């Protein structure tokens, strides 16, 4: 389970995140929605232990990544906004490397590699170097890297970015599988139909603040909109107006 309580982060004079709170339970897919620059990626980086919040607290299964980053990271599978693959390593070597960093070795590592290869259908590219990979192949490799240690919590930053229909379907299947296995899945996205389709819990962030959090039905009801896109725009603009009023 992932919890954020009044998270805030400032870079010099810029308030990237000013008050983000939500709870993402196990066995559910939580979507973080927000316009560009709303603070989604900064929030996810604080969850990953890469950034320390100025105030508030993030908890991964009750562990604060700001204080115990390694313990928190070992319970997380992270899919960053950029794939960041090593072009001279094969897919197998990527999975092996990140598996070892999560403490896997010997037979356990072999089993984990076999399992993730089957799960993400990586067989045909397993021994290929990642240089020149398509976006879909890179996405699957990055996903394998995040899932090799079978984490209890999965955090993805805009995972559908640049993917074709086939890639999106495959990713959707993996997220749904993870949820069905009791995993807590949190992802950020701009793609409303995708969010409507798989997310059970929606958090909308506008200008660094959580403006609404709940199920799709609850979000629609609170906004009075007919669909998620309209609701998203409603809350995003409301957040901006609220901030403008505060500034005035």
């Amino acid at each position, binding site marked *: 389970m992932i919890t954020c309580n009044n998270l805030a982060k400032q*870079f010099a004079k810029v308030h990237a995140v000013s008050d983000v709170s939500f709870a993402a339970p196990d066995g559910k897919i939580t979507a973080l929605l927000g316009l560009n620059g709303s603070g989604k990626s900064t929030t996810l*980086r604080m969850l*990953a*232990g*890469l*950034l*320390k919040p100025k105030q508030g607290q993030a908890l991964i299964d009750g562990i604060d990544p700001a204080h115990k*980053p*390694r*313990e928190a*990271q*070992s319970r*997380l599978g*992270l899919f*960053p906004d*950029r*794939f*960041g*693959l*090593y*072009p*001279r*390593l094969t897919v197998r*070597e990527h999975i092996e*490397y*990140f598996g*070892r*960093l*999560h*403490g896997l*070795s010997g037979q356990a590592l072999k089993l984990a590699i076999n399992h993730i290869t089957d799960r993400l259908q990586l067989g045909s590219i397993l021994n290929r*170097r990642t240089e020149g990979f398509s976006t879909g192949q890179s996405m699957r490799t*990055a996903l394998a*890297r995040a899932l090799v240690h079978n984490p209890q919590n999965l955090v993805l930053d805009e995972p559908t970015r640049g993917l074709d229909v086939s890639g999106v379907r495959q990713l959707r299947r993996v997220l749904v599988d993870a949820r069905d296995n009791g995993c807590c899945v949190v992802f950020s996205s701009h793609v409303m139909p995708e969010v409507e389709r798989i997310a059970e819990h929606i958090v909308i962030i506008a200008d660094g603040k959580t403006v609404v959090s709940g199920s799709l039905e609850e979000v629609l009801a609170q906004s009075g909109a007919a669909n998620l896109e309209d609701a998203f725009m409603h809350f995003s603009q409301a957040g901006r107006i609220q901030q403008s009023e505060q500034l005035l």
Partner: protein
Amino acid sequence: MMQDILSVARKELKDAFRDRRSLLSAIVYSAFGAFVIFLILNALAIEENNEMPTRLAVLGAQHAPVLVELIANDEIEVSILEHKSPAGALIDHDAVLVINDAFPIKLNRTELAELELYVDQTTDAGLQSVERLQIAISAIQSRYAQTRLIAQGINPDIIRAVDLKIRDVAEDSVATMAISRLLVLFFVMAPFFASLSIAADMTAGERERDALQPLLMQPAGQWSIVMGKWLVATAIGLLGVGITVLTAAFAINASPTTEIGVLLYASVTAQRDMMIILAPFIGMIAALQMAISLRSKTYKEAQTYLSLLAFLPVVVAFTAVFKKEHTPDVVYLPIAHHLGMLQQALLDRPLDPALTLAGGTLALAAAGVCLYICVITYRSERLLRA
């Protein structure tokens, strides 16, 4: 922690051996450098062997045939000419000696007899002619003076009040010292080039490829990441420097150094000692390169900084030349210490264990500081913001 270090090291080693750029950087310097050493030493030897004798034309040789006979030696080739002007004779010769008809008369009267030497001193051959003729004439003059004294029944030693006898205590010639000083600079620069590419690629390159963020999201501590990378950079540095020492030793031993008055032979012991001296230094340079590269946003930026850094030994070497006293900072400080110690090894002198240990410890301590800076940099949020 050890498993994490090994995991990072294993991955980086695999990555490095597949990176032609890193491997070339580690090997090319050694191969190219040894080739340059071989060329330089051979060129010096050829130049030494190719020194031509002075072509001296003598006008009026009939006035002093004995003198002409005494002047001719290995370095001076005499041609006796008649009915030619000095300027005309100079066209085909390096110098022209004119003996006028008054010369034998004055010589017989024990008066100062004059000779004229026509030469173009703007040319190397002309300058060399003057030098060689002065030495030859000085020897002949001394011989004439001694003969005159003996003829008058006087001991020739009477005109020599003081005799300075020079006993050279130097183990090595000036040429040996100069060449060895140049060669050790080449050895000290080797680590800078051997690990340049790998250090830049595994830090700035990783950041440029956006692979740093996924790595820092893993439950491996910053020390494990830094140590794993440093071990590989050091290993590649050792490999590159090892090849450098081997190939350079081969180049030195295969060159005709004795022909230029240089007594150098890079024995197996000397090669081993050089590696012992350089090993901690290689680790220090790898750590320093990593610390600098980590602050660079791209591989190219890091490469620029590290290339500039590689000229540091040249600066230190020139400073050391002008520094009169060998104060402790020169004896122990990395680079200065290594230049001195390597020269001793190259001259086949036994290693001073205490000095080697002190210099090595200091280099490793400096490496530790650089690695700590790397850890601090990895912890910095600024690293991920750019």
